[in-house]
């Protein structure tokens, strides 16, 4: 019966690691080293740079004092905070109404409406800003709507970023609204509670953390976005454009580092709040909750429908304007249809090569990023030993969320361009763009992977061990197939973001690795606004196409695995 092999009792030594454990240890250590090299050490480089003078001597906080004493710079702090607060207020309010309509009403076409509302997520933040120029700019079709105000400034930035951040807030608040227990509402009704009081005592508390989380996500996005203020901000300085101007315009790297460090603070705060909210959120849900099925109520449903239609009209209007403008000869004088704006090779800004580079970069990012992030998440979540190291890896994986893209990009210059760094050869290559983009979007993917891993039975590894099957076989045969939807999701997220990102890579591209998103920026800068719109539109349609492929793939996958997948 017993299949145990005889082994001398005393030969086991806790220090002699076995092959499997050694593999796991190497995996965890590799993850730690990767994040150390791609996130923490660059951040250290930028911190130390902010305390150096131009000849590299340590000067303490002198740079910060100089910064505070320069009114043109210090005003950016106020500007950034103002824009972020106003945008957050607008976006969260709108997203709450729309999410409520989607989750808690019986209005028609909810699926289609949700889909259309996600539209802005597929375009770089530059695109709505370019659209603003066409809509409300000096030659804009709707210029009169601004009643004499200029779109170039806070108004344009707020509108563009509200538009761009809306899908993120909508998703978070929708999720919060979907996590509810119908019995709470039935109890409230049985106790004859008024609709308003039910909203205040049942609905609001249950989505409180979702609202806070959405607020901070939008706040951080606005604060750290660079594309929209660059295109439509005019003379209105914000922190993100300051970094760019200091570094690219004035070659003042120290001051760029100082602004970066300042930009880190609000992002860190948002990060801390988000972590706190996540922890609270979990405790709120019970497994026995009954899903809420809304009942029709004509007045509520149709008024919410009207609001949603308005929002969709704006989304279609803004995106449509960009698409339309990209096919027009010479706005607004010659409205003839043309494809000239798509002749990127004739413009300054990298041409079609830039688009190819972008695709290549996005593909590598999706491929390597998914493999790297998922395997690290697996090690963090499913191993039994090395608790301390695993916690360290998890904490390090959380850091990128708090680091704005521009800061990371600048940090990469300081770290990788240093002649003492043996990794110096990466500078100016495609590889550094991929590495930087993976690092930039690491945390969200890590959390997606961890969530997916948490959902599968915690005892798989224990069962495999008892059956003497090595962990990597179970990883390959069970964990990976079960997590395939999450893997696809991570890959798509990385691909879309890699295609649209400007902030992190704007400091890192070389003439050989020009990217499409950056060429939008450069063409707009050079006054070639129609080709800029065209490239932005091209990126958007690429993302939508990829998303479509993703949708088809996951459908095929679900059909093939329907036998064992119970849900859906």
């Amino acid at each position, binding site marked *: 019966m017993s*299949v145990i092999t005889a082994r001398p009792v005393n030969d*086991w030594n806790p220090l002699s690691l076995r092959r499997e454990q050694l593999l796991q240890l190497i995996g965890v250590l590799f993850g730690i080293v990767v994040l150390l090299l791609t996130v923490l050490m660059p951040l250290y480089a930028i911190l130390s740079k902010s305390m150096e003078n131009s000849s590299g001597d340590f000067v303490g906080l002198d740079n910060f004092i100089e910064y505070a004493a320069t009114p043109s710079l210090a005003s950016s702090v106020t500007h950034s905070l103002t824009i972020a607060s106003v945008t957050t207020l607008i976006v969260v309010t709108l997203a709450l109404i729309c999410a409520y309509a989607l989750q808690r009403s019986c209005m028609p076409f909810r699926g289609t409406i949700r889909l259309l509302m996600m539209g802005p997520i597929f375009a770089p933040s530059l695109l709505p800003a370019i659209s603003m120029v066409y809509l409300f700019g000096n030659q804009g079709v709707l210029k009169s709507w601004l009643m004499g105000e200029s779109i170039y400034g806070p108004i344009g930035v707020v509108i563009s970023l509200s538009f761009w951040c809306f899908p993120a807030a909508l998703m978070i608040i929708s999720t919060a609204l979907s996590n509810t227990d119908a019995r709470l509402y039935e109890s409230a009704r049985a106790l004859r509670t008024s609709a308003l009081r039910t909203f205040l005592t049942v609905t609001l508390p249950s989505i409180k953390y979702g609202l806070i989380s959405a607020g901070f996500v939008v706040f951080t996005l606005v604060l750290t976005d660079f594309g929209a203020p660059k295109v439509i901000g005019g003379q209105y300085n914000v922190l993100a454009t300051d970094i760019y101007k200091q570094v690219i315009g004035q070659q003042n790297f120290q001051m760029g580092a100082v602004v970066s460090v300042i930009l880190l603070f609000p992002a860190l705060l948002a990060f801390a709040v988000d972590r706190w909210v996540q922890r609270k959120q979990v405790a709120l849900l019970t497994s026995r909750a009954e899903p809420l099925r809304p009942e029709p109520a004509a007045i509520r449903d149709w008024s919410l429908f009207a609001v949603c239609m308005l929002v969709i009209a704006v989304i279609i209007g803004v995106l449509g304007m960009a698409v339309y403008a990209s096919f027009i000869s010479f706005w607004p004088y010659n409205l003839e249809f043309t494809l000239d704006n798509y002749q990127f090779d004739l413009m300054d800004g990298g041409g079609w090569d830039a688009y190819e580079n972008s695709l290549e970069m996005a593909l590598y990012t999706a491929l390597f990023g998914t493999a790297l992030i998922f395997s690290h998440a697996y090690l963090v979540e499913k191993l039994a030993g090395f608790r301390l190291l695993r916690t360290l890896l998890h904490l390090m994986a959380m850091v990128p969320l708090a680091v704005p893209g521009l800061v990371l990009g600048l940090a990469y210059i300081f770290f990788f361009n240093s002649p003492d760094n043996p990794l110096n050869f990466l500078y100016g290559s495609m590889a550094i763009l991929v590495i930087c983009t993976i690092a930039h979007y690491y945390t969200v993917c890590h959390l997606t992977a961890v969530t997916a891993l948490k959902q599968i039975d915690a005892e798989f590894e*224990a*069962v495999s*061990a*008892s*059956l*003497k*099957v090595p962990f990597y076989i179970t990883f390959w045969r*069970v964990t990976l197939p079960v997590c395939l939807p999450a893997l696809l999701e991570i890959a798509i997220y990385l691909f879309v973001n890699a295609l649209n990102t400007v902030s992190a890579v704007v400091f890192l591209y070389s003439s050989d690795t020009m990217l499409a998103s950056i060429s939008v920026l450069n063409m707009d800068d050079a006054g070639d606004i129609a080709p800029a719109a065209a490239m932005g539109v091209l990126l958007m349609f690429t993302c939508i196409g990829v998303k479509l492929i993703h949708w088809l793939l996951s459908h095929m996958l679900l059909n093939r695995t329907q036998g064992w997948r119970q849900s859906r």
Partner: protein
Amino acid sequence: MNGAYLSIKNVSKSFGDFTALSNISLDIREGEFVCFLGPSGCGKTTLLRAVAGLDLQTEGEIHQAGEDVSWLTPDQRDFGIVFQSYALFPNLTVAENIAYGLKNRKTSRSKLNARVEELLEMIGLPESGVKYPSQLSGGQQQRVALARAIATSPGLLLLDEPLSALDALVRVHLRSEIKELQRKLGVTTIMVTHDQEEALAMADKIVVMNHGVIEQIGTPEEIYSRPKTAFVASFIGQMNFLSSRMLDDGKVQVGGQLLDCEHDKLFQPDNDMQLAIRPEDIRVRYNGDATNTMPADVRHVEFLGSFVRSELDVDGIMEPVIAEFSMNDVRDLQIAKGSRLMLDLPSSRIHLFESAR
């Protein structure tokens, strides 16, 4: 060596300040079916996971088949395990699940298939090999998990609350099946459960645990009829507890009543104690062999099918006493709310415990 298949010696486990297991020692013979029984948080699962090597103990040794396995990883030990959640691989068929551990041992394909067929037969699901776990009921899934665990013929089978996620009827059915399978295979088995009925029905030996210590080890009969501690008495079955006092002459005073008790424990005279007796041990019919008789009023009667549970007001005793009478007793003695009875509390059925402080 003492001939035990599994020896747990002075095992302790603490998480920071919290002591999950404190100095546990236990021997299990080959082929024995042992239940770790206790309320949630008593340390029973922690002890099982220490035996499996899934969560190592802080101190102490575990020997299996004469070998010190205390610090071995799970895959270096010899056991099969079944979890409450089944932990079946959802993307593999039932047959692939069962073959999961066999495949790795480089068994030939025909042998492997034959073994899987044999196991499917054994668990009564001969046609289900091609199905996926989600297409099976909970009870069927747990059977597959069991087949997967015994497929490699381990020397030790560990069951972690295997029946807790199932419906009451399935549970009763499956527990006799598991017990029969275990007897047939003769595999040494440890099952963790919080369900006393399950433990009483299945185990050769029950280990009652509370707050990280073993309260009592014994056969189901011993545990039930001779509980060593007040905790065991209260956790298993129903028990009346009455505050009482030991008198100089060896009699026990409960309120205004004096009772004779047989007991082997030493109690100081004049000490506060707890007297305990099970509801079914209180008699209303006796033929002159009564030891402790006393009158009582029936305050309340609860009909439970084959018997009634009644709440009694015993003369001179403040606390209500619960007694269970068969339907025959009820009919013959016309027991109903308000009727007056003469009870006997047999001295051999009375348990005495230290008073809870």
